[in-house]
């Protein structure tokens, strides 16, 4: 399992939790060519991201190659409190996976 880095910030704003996350990933579309060799760089991108809070899925992202390199996302949800754990797990088109978690502040 490839170990990739991820940054997650989660904090309470009133009764809702704000989440911002960056996953470090090349997100190759499969359409770019390597300038030196002229060969097409194979597609490599995250297809699915799951964000869970207390075991409940709050957001499932389905991504295509059109999402930028090192994808950033931000979302909000209710029903959380300070100290809760938010988990984010992803899988890419090559079957690599990654996971990160943050404590809601």
């Amino acid at each position, binding site marked *: 399992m490839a170990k990739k880095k991820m940054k997650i910030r989660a904090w309470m704003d009133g009764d809702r939790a704000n989440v911002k996350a960056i996953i470090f990933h090349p997100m190759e579309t499969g359409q770019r060519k390597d300038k030196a060799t002229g060969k097409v760089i194979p597609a490599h991108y995250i297809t699915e991201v799951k964000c869970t809070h207390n075991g409940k899925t709050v957001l499932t992202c389905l991504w*295509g190659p059109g999402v930028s390199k090192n994808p950033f996302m931000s*979302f909000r949800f209710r029903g959380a409190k300070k100290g809760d754990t938010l988990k984010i797990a992803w899988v890419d088109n090559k079957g690599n996976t990654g996971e990160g978690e943050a404590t809601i502040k």
Partner: protein
Amino acid sequence: MTVDRRTFLRAGMAAGTTALAVGAGLLSPGRVLAAWPKNAFMATSLDDALKAMNLSGAQASSQVMVDAPDIAENGAVVSVTVKTELPDVQSITVLVPKNTMPLISSYEFGPQTEGFITSRIKMRETSDVIGVVKAGGKLHMAKKPVKVTLGGCGG
């Protein structure tokens, strides 16, 4: 034997890989890649992508807002926010009609999640960015034109 050897081996290998992914993964079986709508993401026209995602026939709505820059200097990173005040949001989908593959991303919301998502997307050229919101079983959409400056020279 009805199944020839090659086919049999391939099937076995595919099953092995899947088992490996599930074993190593954090996602439960059945969720791994299976939910990812390949047809929709590989569609090369907006209509096909919408059809494959069952999002055809969305009505323009003032309750959906697509927030993106008027001019994006670098098409590789365009920050797009789609938000809505509609209750019971089930999904938000982001599309760029002029991209080679118009479907960018689709977000499925849990019951506690607000109708708000920000992400960064790639844009091949000047185009509309379309946000489709599925809320309460109905489809709503909004769009926002974004001018993409080519070359990334900051012109």
